[in-house]
């Protein structure tokens, strides 16, 4: 059954990708990309990668699509007729694809439990991590503890993204109150948003702190919390959102999250262990792992929330500027 679902989803993905190649209407392209992301999230779910599915749905189908739409609002939605000769790209793609297909011929069969991937390294995560780290969600154990350095790097990548976006676009605080911002006339939206936003933030907190036991964690929580504020900013306008959380404050929050994460590593060095060795954080190693993971997940959550919201602010204020012009 799982294989059948997989096949159907893959077919839908292939159709979506083909449609995107030939479409000229960029608005439709971006919406199809959102669908593509969502379908791949379903594939991830079907292949047991619940955390990944969660992230792909919130990032690919959520944040990325929103950012692309805002960009389209500034750049226009029609693609002009391409004048590129498409033969060279086609040739490059065919060669690359042929190389990859050649590579698949010696691949271990799909889903087989004896594959090398399942024989080396991973068994320790599956068998020992519930004892060594003490969390039922192995993905969180590996992410935050065994490969915690990768996750620090990932947080820094997000931080670099906000540095890039801010240096390119900046966030302008508007002095003029008269320009139309948000969806003033939509009464129904206002009421519904006011009901929903607290629930979304509550859900984000649940995802943040329940990530040790179920799918979720700092990254997903940060994105969901940012989505709640993005909704607020969309409906009530950027100036009102700036009054709640200002862009300057968000910059500090983004920096603080990275520093919070790194400080756990420094503290464990101070206690005599290696960088990010959570065993040193408490007398009982498993308790130490638990403290360490909660704190670094908080750091990730804070940074991701601040960065995603700040990036949206930057794009949003550009879009409002182009509306005025």
């Amino acid at each position, binding site marked *: 059954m799982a294989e059948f679902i997989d096949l159907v989803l893959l077919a839908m993905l292939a159709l979506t990708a083909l449609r995107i190649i030939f479409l000229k209407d960029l608005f439709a392209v971006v919406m199809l990309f959102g669908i593509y992301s969502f379908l791949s999230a379903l594939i991830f779910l079907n292949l047991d990668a619940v955390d990944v599915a969660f992230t*792909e749905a919130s990032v*690919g189908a959520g944040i990325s699509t929103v950012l692309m739409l805002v960009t389209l609002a500034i750049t*226009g939605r029609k693609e002009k007729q*391409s004048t590129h000769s498409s033969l060279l790209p086609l040739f490059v793609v065919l060669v690359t694809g042929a190389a990859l297909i050649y590579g698949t011929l010696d691949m271990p069969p799909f889903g087989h*439990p004896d594959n090398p991937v399942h024989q080396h390294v991973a068994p320790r995560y599956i068998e020992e991590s519930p004892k060594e780290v003490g969390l039922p969600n192995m993905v969180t154990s590996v992410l935050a503890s065994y490969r915690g350095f990768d996750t620090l790097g990932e947080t820094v990548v997000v931080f670099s993204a906000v540095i890039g976006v801010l240096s390119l676009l900046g966030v302008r605080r508007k002095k003029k109150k008269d320009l139309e911002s948000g969806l003033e006339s939509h009464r129904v939206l206002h009421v519904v948003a006011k009901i929903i936003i607290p629930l979304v933030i509550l859900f984000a907190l649940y995802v943040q702190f329940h990530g040790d036991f179920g799918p979720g964690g700092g990254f997903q929580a940060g994105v969901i919390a940012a989505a709640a504020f993005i909704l607020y900013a969309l409906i009530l306008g950027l100036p009102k959102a700036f009054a709640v959380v200002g862009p300057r404050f968000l910059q500090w929050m983004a920096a603080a999250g990275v520093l919070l994460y790194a400080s756990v590593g420094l503290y464990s060095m101070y206690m005599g262990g290696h960088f990010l060795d959570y065993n040193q954080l408490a007398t009982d190693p498993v308790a130490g792992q638990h403290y360490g993971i909660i704190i670094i997940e908080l750091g990730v959550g804070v940074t991701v929330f601040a960065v995603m919201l700040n990036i949206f602010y930057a794009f949003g204020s550009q879009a409002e500027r182009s509306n005025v012009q």
Partner: protein
Amino acid sequence: MSFILDYYNYWVVVFLMMAGFYIVISANNLVKKIVGLNIFQTSVFMLYISMGKVSGGTAPIVVEGVTQYSNPLPHVLILTAIVVGVATTAVGLALIVRIKRAYGTVEENEFDNKDDVI
């Protein structure tokens, strides 16, 4: 037949990757290039997740009575890679907004004509 059943997943994923790759290198519009880049990357993520799957396994969260779990390591790698992807997308889109402001167009061949090449 079992050959096809063993590999069809990888083949479709390769096709999707190449579709994304084609969009990146052939599109003239910068937004479409970024969409292509995302499709390319998302398909690579599928390659990783496919190799982590164990037939008959469940999601790698400890549940009483389950012995066969899928491999958690590719999931962790891809969580990181998704974040890297969205970071790149954000910076790329910000560049596009600035290019639109500076050149008035986001079609590659049009702004090329507005400057001397290099």
